[in-house]
């Protein structure tokens, strides 16, 4: 069966510090991968998606970047965190094709102070 991992589970970082969140998927090959951010009490906003190694598409301009160095590894980064980067970050995967549900990881709670 497929599983998706995210780490760390929680993170507290000072403003201006770098960020690296990692997501890995097991049990599937060539998945589509997604990064979402969720503000408190709100829905999910898509940040990045990837259909293959090295292929990254950004949905919204922001202080973050993403990379996919391996087929089942997706990384969310920032060089300098802002207070507004605080939130709940979720990684998700789906199969190729249109009618495929997305499966979410456990999330990372990021607090920027």
């Amino acid at each position: 069966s497929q599983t998706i991992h995210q780490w760390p589970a929680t993170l507290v970082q000072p403003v201006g510090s770098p960020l690296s969140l990692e997501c890995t998927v097991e049990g599937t090959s060539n998945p589509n991968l997604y990064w979402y951010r969720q503000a408190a009490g709100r829905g999910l906003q898509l940040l990045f998606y990837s259909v293959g190694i090295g292929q990254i598409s950004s949905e919204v301009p922001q202080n973050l970047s993403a990379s996919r160095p391996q087929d089942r590894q997706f990384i969310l980064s920032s060089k300098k965190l802002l207070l507004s980067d605080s939130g709940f970050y979720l990684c998700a995967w789906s199969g190729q094709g249109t009618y495929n549900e997305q499966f979410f990881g456990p999330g990372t709670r990021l607090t920027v102070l």
Partner: protein
Amino acid sequence: GESVGLHLPTLSVQEGDNSIINCAYSNSASDYFIWYKQESGKGPQFIIDIRSNMDKRQGQRVTVLLNKTVKHLSLQIAATQPGDSAVYFCAENKALDSSYKLIFGSGTRLLVRP
């Protein structure tokens, strides 16, 4: 513009009763919808999906109804249990260049009273 929204932010039901969570969408071209359940501090969990060529789909204790005429989606939970307490999101599937994205509503919090 496109949007997926929910009518009620919070729904409180008695344990054992049926729950109905509603969702409105604005993109008439949308052809795939998903309901997710999110417990506090966790990632969303897939509940059930429906394609636009269907009006109704049933799962275990859950039913999704799709009314394309009024662009309305609902999730019905039968015999609601305490474990059903969570935030429920409907999501609309929109095609991207080589993938697709989910447009989420703001969510409805379901509270189950013992």
